[in-house]
């Protein structure tokens, strides 16, 4: 039955993807990309991959839509027609598709217990997690401890993306064309109901974000999802109360500090492993009991990830919004 649901959702996914590529109105494409992210998140969810589904729903369907709309507000809405090299790209794409389709005939069947993915690494993780790390969520154990290098790389990629966007978008023409946004009556700030509801929800979203951050050891959650949720709370506040009040609540200097200190915290925990006598990113030496050391290490690095993701997402949002006002 799960397979049927999966096939249905994948069919909808193909239809959405074709529609996204077909349309020339970029706003329609952004809306359809939101639906696309939701369909992918549902597919992950049906396959029991809850952490990835949560990240995809929070970042892909929520934050990405907001950032795409911010970018669209700065450019035009109609896509310009591309160059004329259509036949060559068609040949390349078709041949690549045929090769990939031919390769899938050799794949093991869905759920086959003899497949290579179930033979080597996965059983080792499932067996050794209770012994070395002792937390219920194996995904966080793998992400935080066994493959800590990869997550370190991810945090630095997010950090680099944040720096890149801030370089590109902060170099605008100063305050030259700063004009006051006139109340046109459509805006959310002039309507009472969205303002009240928005302001009511912000503390709950923040609390839920903190819950997701620290609950990553026991259920779906972790730093990336929590960062996206906390950034979403501040974006909601910015939408209903305005850019200036949000920047008064959480200034850009704090966002910079969050970005930098998150990445530094992660690297620092890794270096602490060396200082205390073991290798880089070995958390067992952080405390007298190795398992308690692993727990401490995972909490610290997840906090680092959450801080960096929050800082980066909010900085990108403010960069777009400030550029739009000027």
């Amino acid at each position, binding site marked *: 039955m*799960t397979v049927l*649901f999966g096939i*249905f*959702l994948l069919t*909808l996914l193909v*239809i*959405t993807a074709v*529609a996204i590529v077909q349309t020339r109105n970029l*706003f*329609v494409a952004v*809306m*359809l990309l*939101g*639906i696309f992210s*939701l369909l992918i*998140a*549902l597919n992950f*969810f*049906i396959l*029991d991959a*809850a952490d990835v*589904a*949560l990240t995809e*729903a*929070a970042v892909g*369907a*929520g*934050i990405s*839509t*907001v950032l795409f*709309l*911010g970018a669209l*507000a700065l450019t035009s809405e109609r896509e310009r027609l591309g160059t004329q090299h259509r036949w060559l790209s068609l040949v390349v794409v078709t041949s690549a598709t045929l090769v990939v389709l031919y390769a899938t005939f050799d794949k093991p069947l869905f759920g086959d217990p003899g497949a290579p993915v179930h033979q080597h690494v996965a059983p080792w993780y499932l067996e050794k997690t209770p012994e070395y790390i002792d937390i219920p969520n194996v995904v966080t154990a793998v992400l935080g401890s066994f493959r800590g290098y990869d997550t370190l790389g991810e945090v630095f990629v997010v950090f680099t993306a944040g720096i890149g966007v801030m370089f590109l978008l902060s170099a605008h023409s100063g305050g030259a064309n700063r*004009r006051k*946004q*006139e109340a*046109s009556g*459509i*805006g*959310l700030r002039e309507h009472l109901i*969205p303002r009240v509801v*928005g302001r009511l*929800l912000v503390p*709950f*979203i923040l609390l*839920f974000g903190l819950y*997701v951050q620290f*609950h990553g050891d*026991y*259920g*779906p*959650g972790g730093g990336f*999802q929590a960062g996206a*949720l906390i950034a*979403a709370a501040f*974006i*909601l506040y910015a*939408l*209903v109360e305005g850019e200036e009040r949000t920047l008064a609540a959480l200034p850009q200097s704090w966002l910079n500090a969050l970005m930098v200190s998150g990445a530094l915290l992660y690297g620092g925990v890794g270096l602490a492993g060396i200082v205390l006598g073991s290798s880089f990113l070995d958390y067992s030496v952080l405390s007298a009991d190795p398992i308690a050391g692993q727990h401490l290490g995972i909490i610290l690095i997840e906090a680092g990830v959450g801080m960096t993701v929050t800082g980066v997402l909010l900085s990108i949002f403010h960069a777009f919004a400030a550029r*739009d006002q000027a």
Partner: protein
Amino acid sequence: MYYAVTIAVLVTMALALTRALIGPTVYDRVLAVNMFGTKTVLLFSVIAFLSGRPDFLDLALAYALINFIGILAVLEFFRSRANKRAEEQRGNPADGGETD
């Protein structure tokens, strides 16, 4: 018993997707995305119980909150676009507005 609800919600998602694809104005598409979002929350909740894992309900809660923020962001985008059009029209009366 959960299967019937799941099938109903999946069919509704397909219908909402159709509305998002053919809606003549942009507001139709925003409506369809909002509806798709609430149906996704319901589907997360029901399938979490269907597969016997009630601790996956965090996803439904997270997405219920984020859906709201996405829709408000879209409407804010419309407002800023309408403001810009109004400014341009005041500066250049020959400019026409465009729909959709």
